[in-house]
């Protein structure tokens, strides 16, 4: 009798152990305010991959940073000190990443970035426990510069908001654009009226326009640009043409060329499965942010399959191997833990009633980033 009770207790104990999460993931992302669409997409993509893996031993603690660096830092401290997470992820904005990532990796946590890729963390500030699964910030702009050169544009008018990622954007574009600049403007961050800039574009004699205006700024610019009748060809990074905001831009975006590391028509089984299951579960098409969240979770799961997270060196090697099926097809990390991947050229099209993108070419093949050489791990 006694033996039986003991055995029962043992079995129950083991069951309880199995049910308890072995791996804790801390996700800090933007779920409220103006930029919430991006964080929600990353979160939904990440959780979809976890659900499909069937693993019940991974617990994800999700918190909203409200797009504020101070709140992100508080949340990170709480996750590291009281929740004792093993891995952190989720941050969308580069300025928040700069506030959280260096501290988190210094305390021995792994950080997998599903979006922000500031140059400071790719070059001198790189860290062996920091992995970026999306892109280095300059990448898509470099792709746009390469495309503009290939398309034969000789004189581009370029504009971006006056903040670090905006400066990175114009630097990235210029790095690969061989023509001249008809004008270069820094706009205000959060600016919503671009009439003055559009008038300058009209007067500049440029043959093409490149802009990096993420989120609502891009919607405003595109609608006003289309209405102005200037009509020069526009090139931009995918951030102003993702699935979440295209519907708000409408016809003004049709035919616009943009560059991305992902699109829903990349032909591989992982991507097809991802697009189908995401659309079925959330009743909307996935954006590039959702694909990045999905890939981040699959990278994490692949590393957990082959290594114990408590053995940091082995786990890091497993992450570096990047042995997972990416929605982007081929995927590998460079020496600074940033992706080496293709940057595609997309065109905005209309499928039925839905505005979306179609890949029409490749801007850069197996492209790394400009900062890898500065990284000493």
């Amino acid at each position, binding site marked *: 009798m006694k033996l039986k009770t003991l055995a029962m207790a043992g079995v129950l104990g083991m069951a309880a152990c199995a049910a308890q999460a072995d791996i804790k993931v801390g996700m800090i992302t933007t779920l*409220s*305010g*103006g930029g*919430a*669409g991006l964080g*929600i997409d990353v979160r939904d993509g990440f959780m979809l991959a976890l659900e499909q893996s069937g693993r019940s031993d991974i617990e994800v603690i999700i918190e909203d940073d409200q797009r504020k660096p101070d709140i992100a830092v508080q949340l990170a401290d709480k996750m590291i000190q009281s929740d004792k997470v093993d891995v952190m992820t989720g941050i969308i904005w580069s300025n928040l990443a700069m506030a959280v990532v260096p501290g988190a990796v210094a305390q021995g946590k792994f950080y997998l970035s599903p979006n922000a890729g500031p140059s400071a963390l790719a070059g001198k500030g790189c860290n062996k426990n920091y992995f970026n699964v999306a892109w280095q910030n300059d990448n898509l702009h470099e792709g746009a510069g390469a495309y503009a050169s290939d398309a034969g544009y000789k004189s581009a008018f370029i504009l971006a908001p*006056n903040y670090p990622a905006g400066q990175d954007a114009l630097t990235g574009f210029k790095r690969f654009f061989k023509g001249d600049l008809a004008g*270069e*403007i*820094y*706009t*205000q961050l*959060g600016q*919503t*009226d671009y*009439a*003055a*800039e559009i*008038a*300058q574009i*009209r*007067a500049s004699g440029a043959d093409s326009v490149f802009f990096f205006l993420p*989120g*609502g*700024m891009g*919607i*405003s610019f595109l*609608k*006003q640009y289309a*209405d*102005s*009748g200037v009509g020069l060809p526009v090139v931009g990074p995918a951030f102003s043409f993702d699935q*979440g*905001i295209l*519907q*708000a*831009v*409408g*016809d003004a975006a049709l035919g616009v060329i943009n560059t991305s590391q992902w699109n829903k028509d990349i032909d591989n089984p992982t991507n097809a499965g991802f697009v189908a299951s995401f659309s079925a579960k959330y009743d909307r098409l996935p954006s590039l942010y959702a694909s990045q969240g999905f890939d981040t979770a699959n990278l994490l799961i692949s590393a957990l399959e082959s290594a114990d997270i408590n053995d940091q060196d082995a786990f890091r090697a497993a992450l570096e191997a990047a042995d997972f099926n990416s929605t982007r097809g081929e995927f590998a990390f460079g020496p600074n833990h940033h992706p080496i991947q293709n940057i595609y050229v997309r065109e905005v099209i209309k499928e039925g009633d839905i505005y979306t993108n179609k890949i029409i070419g490749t801007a850069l093949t197996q492209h790394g980033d400009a900062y890898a050489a500065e990284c000493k791990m």
Partner: protein
Amino acid sequence: MSLILFTEQMLNGLQFGVMLFLMAAGLTLIFGVMGLINLAHGSLYMVGAFAAAWVAGASGSFLLALMASLAAAAAAGALIELTVIRRLYARDHLDQVLATFALILIFSEGTRWAFGSFPLFLDIPPLLSGPVTLPGGIEYPLYRLTIILVGLTVAAALFALIARTRIGIQIRAGESDREMIAALGVNISALYTLVFALGAALAGLAGALIGAIQSVQVGMGEPVLILAFVVIVIGGIGSIKGALVGAILVGLTDTLGRILLPAFFSQFMAPQAANSVGSSLASMAIYILMAVVLVVRPGGLFGKA
């Protein structure tokens, strides 16, 4: 810089100013008549834009959408006046700021709950889309001209309302002595609700008009709110005329500053440096304007000193 480009930029500045006036008029009326700082005014702008986008999407009519924006913002304004704002008139400004800031959060998350996190679509009606050629060969978007026209019409109507009608007399009286006008038998609380709803409707109209050329999304009202406060401080708090002059001054300063300052610095600096100094200074231009006005006239241009 060619004359054509300069004229086009003046029009842009005027259009921006007129839009700011629609926001600032309500804000200054509410502050002038009731002594209330309403941070939630930007939320009413957002309510107007969302109502317009929703109705335009459902009915396809831009005119219906504009009417919906007026109605929705006025209703939202009246509702918060009756439930929250009314309790704040006697409190000090800090309490008002706190409560109306809470309203911003409630409106933002409530809108997200109702409409989702992704921006909505609201387009310029086909009749008003595309550029027209003005005398002198200036190509200018017809829709922006329409905004200028609508804004100036609203300004004229508002002046007539304040100067010529019985309601206007009551509003002006309420501004100078609220106890006396209550003692004379005017229903002061109904008047306050009316003024608040009127201000809210103007903000909603601005949101709908601007929503068609910008993005209709949660949090769209806050940047405009800050500018609207700058406008009423420059114009003199409580003065509709001040709001109009202040709004056009701010619109022109901001637009021309963005163009002229980088060009000015490039006369004697390297292009890259001129660009970054110029655009940094341009974003400060309206605040410098505000500081100068306050030094010369501490009560604002048309304020009571």
